């Protein structure tokens, strides 16, 4: 059922179109800068849908961030949030972030619903490091990523972004964990804040490796 289609545009980050099926590991130690880059990557174009699992922002805040990244993208987003209430059809809430069984079912349902509107989707987890810090056994997180996040990318026409705050305490060696995650994802973008509204992206695995300075 996986289809090869046109890439997913991310002009605002000076990156070329991203191929369908691409999984991106997004890392950085400045949470605000990470959030901004995440939103630019995940904000849906007119013929797409966004599916966002948010651990730190409410549904409306996520939709506002997506709107700031791309006009109208917030209206094309379904959000599963661990902060704040559910709202309408597009914002659902999660009671317990460590209940990965439920989280996985909710995420799959959102992706399936989004695909009723459009085949093309951008999915994202912001922040995966928060989940890693909450679960008892990291193997459960890897099962969740394999069974839900990476599987949906293999089966459908979409891209996925998994953000990791490298300053967070995940109960394991961060550098070693990133090394492992890097090999399972098809691309890695490292975000470094260089000034107010400015960042350097170190990109690996997206049509050539490069370093890009961006205004956010």
């Amino acid at each position, binding site marked *: 059922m996986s289809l090869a289609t046109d890439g997913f545009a991310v002009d605002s980050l000076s990156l070329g179109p991203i191929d369908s099926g691409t999984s991106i590991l997004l890392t950085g130690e400045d949470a605000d800068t990470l959030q901004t880059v995440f939103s630019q990557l995940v904000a849906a174009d007119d013929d797409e849908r966004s599916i966002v699992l948010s651990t730190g922002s409410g549904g409306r805040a996520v939709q506002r961030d997506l709107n700031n990244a791309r006009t109208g993208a917030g209206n094309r987003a379904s959000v599963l949030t661990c902060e704040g209430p559910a709202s309408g059809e597009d914002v659902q809430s999660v009671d317990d972030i460590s209940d990965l*069984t*439920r989280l996985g*079912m909710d995420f799959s349902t959102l992706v399936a619903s989004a695909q009723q509107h459009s085949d093309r989707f951008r999915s994202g987890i912001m922040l995966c490091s928060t989940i890693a810090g909450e679960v008892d056994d990291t193997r*459960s997180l890897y*099962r969740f990523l394999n*069974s839900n996040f990476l599987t949906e990318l293999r089966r459908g026409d979409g891209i996925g972004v998994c953000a990791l705050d490298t300053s967070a305490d995940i109960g394991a060696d961060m550098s070693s964990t990133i090394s492992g995650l890097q*090999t399972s994802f098809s691309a890695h973008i490292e975000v470094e804040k260089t000034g107010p509204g400015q960042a350097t992206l170190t990109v690996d695995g997206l049509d050539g490796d490069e370093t890009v300075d961006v205004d956010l």
Partner: protein
Amino acid sequence: MSKATTEEATDLSRTVLCVDDEQRIDDVSTAIDGEGTLAAVEATTVEDATELLQAESVVCVVTSYDLPDGTGMDVIEAVREHAPQVPSVLFTDRPPQEIDTASFEETIVEYLNRDLPDAHDRLGFVTNDVIEHSAQVGFLRPDDEEERLATLAEYDIDELPIDESFERLTDLIASHFDAGVAFIGLIEKDEENFLACHGADLDSLTREDTICTHSMLQEDVMVIEDIADDNRFNKNEQLENLGIVSYAGANMTAPNGQVIGQVCLIDFEKRSYDAVERAELQDFAETAMEILDLRKSLRDARGEEVAR
């Protein structure tokens, strides 16, 4: 009630356990049998499903949520207990919020909504997909895992008389580092096979229970000074049962760059390794790889001679 629905059910490599009530079980097993490569066996209660899991080798479980003597989550819990590597699909018309996950918070399952218009068509596709891609494993795989496994397959250990050499090598490694255990393991698709081990009786371990499956993803030597401080390993009963406290692992990298195995040290106390020790462990891993490569070259040359 349980029965094999087709003659193909005797092909255990592709048998799928389908669990639903008496009224709906035929719909599910028909969808599975319709895939051609899959064969359904049926159970209509949690109890029957649990018995079947212990009696038969299945490659996937598809279960409804509402069952006469429990729920589909009870079936999935039985899968985790009796066949932890087997993926599960929860095929239900219940929305996620009506499913009681309180006792199963870290049990990952493929959720497929039965109310979707093409649900039965998707069931066969999804079941095949989770089997083909081992989609619910609890470890990270390299993006080029298939290439890695193909490289590993070229080193057919059964044909290469390697045991004595590697046993001597692990004896030397343990002595050099004064470590409790030293071993050489190859990392297969689902498990790690230990070719030689000094200080413990290791044969094989499920891959998600090993530290090596993490270590192989790092270019440099991976050291865990105390696994109690690392969430990746401190809930791992296998490691706890083995009494492992510290770990150091170095990659065995084939000439094409693929990592096929590990040379490792484990100890029963907290331990660190300095830069020199890490470099030495890497040297031992490269020596092990060279031994494997030399044996492989010899075997290949003999094969060519016979062919002439």
